[in-house]
């Protein structure tokens, strides 16, 4: 035994041969390289996502603050209503010289020589021209303020707002700068006295379109978007569900069904701008609907969203197991009852998820709306879907074309709001799926 064990290793100890080089090291290196490429690709994608979001947020978070100048405004009767006609002719109050009130208040607050016109002009330039309507509304709504002095928070002009947020490069020569040195000095004194403050920018959420950044907001556009989303939801959900039920459950397998099938898949990939052309030609030119109306926008977006919803609904219907159908049919339900009482309710989470994703897509869509005239300068809230309105992404597009620094900030702010809506909708879809999705 011992002999055998002693001799056994001898058979294995062949003279050490040079190992055949099969390039294993090289191949492993290639493997690692390939893997690194994959990782790099994912990191590239994530890097761009990060840069995109960072650009928007770093440019946009300041949009949620707005500089205001609180001045004691003397609503003097001599300026507003010198001839005391307001009892007979209330329209006089609409046309009174309100900017003069602001001028006087500024002269008093900043100790300016009223005869130095250039200086006075620089001072009044610090306050937004929207002060006129702001003061007018105060007076028209409550005539008893006439003759009294009230503290009114006026919006600062866009460039002053930017300077107050530190966004204007002060190293640039004064002549090339939007904000002059005297104005900077005044800003300092106003800040020290507490007159100039940065507050939460409620105007961004309530105002409509304006050529002055400080008076521009997304309120009106958001209402237009809301109308369109309601129209899309009300039309595309029932039509989409009905169409998918027919195609999935009833349609005979023939050429026509195949055609519809190919058609829907193709419609899902048609460029959105083509839907805009369709809306312009059919709804506006042919059917004579009003241009710029949320109704037309809603119809166009409905047609655009339908394929998405149909595809999602069909997948959800397909996922309901045949045993459910067999059981219902076996108990004497008709095919229609089986589908509407059993299959559709079980498929509903999937349907709603698809619908929300389709709606989120429609909410961010811009191109078709440009063609049906929703690139409109809409100042007032639309009272109905038939009135001219604009949409959130279109408002972003219009602001993106403005040059002023304050508009860049507002564009980014509006994008942040839009993205928040999209994130909420997508989160809703994910939660819905997690909560109700069944694995059979």
């Amino acid at each position, binding site marked *: 035994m011992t002999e055998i064990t002693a001799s056994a290793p001898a058979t294995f100890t062949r003279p050490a041969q040079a190992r055949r080089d099969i390039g294993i090291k090289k*191949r*492993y290196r*290639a*493997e690692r390289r390939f*893997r690194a*490429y*994959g*990782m*790099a*690709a*994912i990191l*590239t*994608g*994530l890097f*761009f*996502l990060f840069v*995109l979001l960072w650009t*928007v947020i770093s440019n946009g978070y300041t949009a949620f603050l707005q500089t205001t100048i609180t001045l004691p405004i003397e609503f003097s009767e001599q300026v507003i209503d010198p001839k005391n006609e307001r009892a007979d002719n209330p329209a006089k109050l609409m046309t009174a010289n309100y900017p003069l009130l602001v001028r006087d208040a500024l002269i008093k607050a900043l100790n300016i020589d009223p005869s130095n016109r250039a200086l006075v002009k620089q001072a009044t330039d610090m306050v937004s021209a929207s002060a006129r309507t702001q003061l007018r509304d105060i007076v028209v709504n409550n005539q008893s303020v006439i003759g009294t002095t009230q503290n009114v928070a006026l919006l600062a002009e866009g460039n002053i707002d930017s300077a107050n947020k530190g966004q204007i490069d002060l190293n640039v020569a004064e002549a090339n700068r939007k904000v002059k040195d005297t104005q900077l000095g005044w800003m300092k004194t106003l800040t020290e006295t507490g007159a100039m403050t940065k507050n939460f920018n409620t105007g961004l959420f309530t105002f409509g379109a304006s050529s002055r950044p400080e008076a521009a907001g997304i309120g009106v556009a958001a209402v237009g978007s809301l109308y369109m989303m309601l129209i899309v939801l009300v039309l595309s959900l029932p*039509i*989409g569900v*009905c*169409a998918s039920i*027919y*195609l999935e459950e009833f*349609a005979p397998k023939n050429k026509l069904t195949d*055609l*519809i099938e190919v058609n*829907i898949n*193709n*419609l899902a*990939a*048609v*460029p959105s*701008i*083509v839907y805009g*052309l*369709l809306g312009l*030609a*059919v709804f506006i030119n*042919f059917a004579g609907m009003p241009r710029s109306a949320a109704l037309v926008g809603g119809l166009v977006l409905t*047609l655009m969203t*339908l*394929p998405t919803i149909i595809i999602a609904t069909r997948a959800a219907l397909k996922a309901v197991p045949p045993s459910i159908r067999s059981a219902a049919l076996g108990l004497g339900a*008709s095919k*229609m009852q089986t589908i509407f009482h059993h299959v559709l309710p079980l498929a509903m989470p999937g349907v709603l998820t698809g619908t929300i994703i389709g709606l989120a*897509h429609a909410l*961010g869509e*811009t*191109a078709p709306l*440009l*063609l049906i*005239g929703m*690139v409109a300068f809409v100042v007032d809230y639309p009272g109905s879907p038939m009135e001219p309105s604009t949409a959130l992404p279109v408002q*972003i*597009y219009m602001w*993106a074309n403005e040059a002023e620094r304050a508009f860049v900030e507002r*564009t980014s702010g509006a994008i942040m709001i839009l*993205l928040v809506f*999209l994130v909420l909708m*997508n989160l809703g879809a994910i939660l819905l799926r997690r909560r109700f999705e069944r694995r059979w």
Partner: protein
Amino acid sequence: MNTSLIFLIVLIIGLAAYFVARSRAVTSANGKLSVLHSLPGYHGTYAAIWATLPALVVLGVWLIASPMLIEKTIRAELPETVTSQGSAPTELALGQVISVANGLRLLSDDELATVTSGSATLRETLAAKGVPMASEAATYLLASAQDYNALKDTSQLAMAAVVIILSIAGAVFALRGISAPFRARNRVEQVILGALLLASSIAILTTVGIIGSMLSEAIRFFQSVSPSTFFFGTVWDPRFAAAGSGGSEGQFGLLPLLAGTLYIAFVAMLFAVPVGLFAAIYMAEYARPSVRSIAKPLLEILAGIPTIVYGFFALITVGPFLRDVSAQLNGLVTGNYVNFIQAQSVLTAGIVMGIMLIPFVSSLSDDIITQVPRSLRDGSLGLGATRSETIKKVVLPAALPGIVGALLLTASRAVGETMIVVLAAGVAARMQLNPFEAMTTVTVKIVNQLTGDLEFNSPQTLVAFALGITLFAITLCLNIYALYIVRKYREQYE
């Protein structure tokens, strides 16, 4: 009686028919519900459908047809002096008649009497009511307007009568047919099936609408510009469509736009395909489930961001960045700090569009790669190949047709993308090969030609539809071919 009131009345009749039919079905069964063929609710629905559906269809048809008929009558009434001038003045006169007719509705009886007797001018009276008129009314206008209003009143009254009678008749007819063995469920389900069929035909109607509307407008365009100069023209210079100028001659060459579109899409694909494909391979073959479950949704966020945001990103960040970098590079090499990349350029638009396309490429290819059967991989790994060799030599060749399909779908999206190129590519239509200069695309020009004040008869606006149908044709071919490949591929491994 206005239309919404009629609508409401029909609905009320329908609701009443529902409850009456329901209780009738119950009584006809003498309290033994099992005798009924259909549940009472189906009998009710059957009656409600008979009460509402025919009436509402007639209402809809009437609402569409009656204005056309009335306008036709009024148009025939217009004096010879107007109609002989051609179609545009006739339509103008018709519009005037209608606005005057609407204005007359605002007047009280006394005011109307003074206007008809001629003692007050129509223009001033209407202006006081907030209805402006461009010029003093022609003599025929008042008579025509009154005729218009009378016809409209008669039509409305007749419509109300017909619709309501039809609704009641339908309800009565349905109620008479109700008995225990009546197969109400089958009838109701037939109607529902019809509705389902109607809904699914909307998809077809959309396509027909797209093709029909664009084709008809494009044909109007080709009547003033010949198709050969459009499709083979190398100069795009449409001029402005000043209202009433009747379309001063412009040049509508498609080629520079098409060149820009394809060039930008090419740059975008050049950027998106390697990144997207490698990301998909890593995610499908290497990544641990935990990494995959984080990285995949994060990448898909990129697909959910609206394209206008990408456009803004290009305008604010990428464009200026490329411009400044090129100026610095140029300065380091030649000492002359002048940028050679424009802020709006093919490169800017291409890169940003590429970023947008990454998730499309990656998630489509990911699906396709994971569909390749496990056995192919196991065979290759079992023979001693490394994972990357397996991927390169086995998985990718097997997935190739599907990936090509996915890339074609992505390319179709790149060709049809609008907002990024509107903000990042520029508006200069020229044919050149330098990616650092601005070029423009088909979609940009569609937007440019159709925003602002429009006159729909000029080639300047109609050209947008010719561009649109070109775009639709290109993407249609890409989509159908891609969908065909993907479908075929899927069948191969199922």
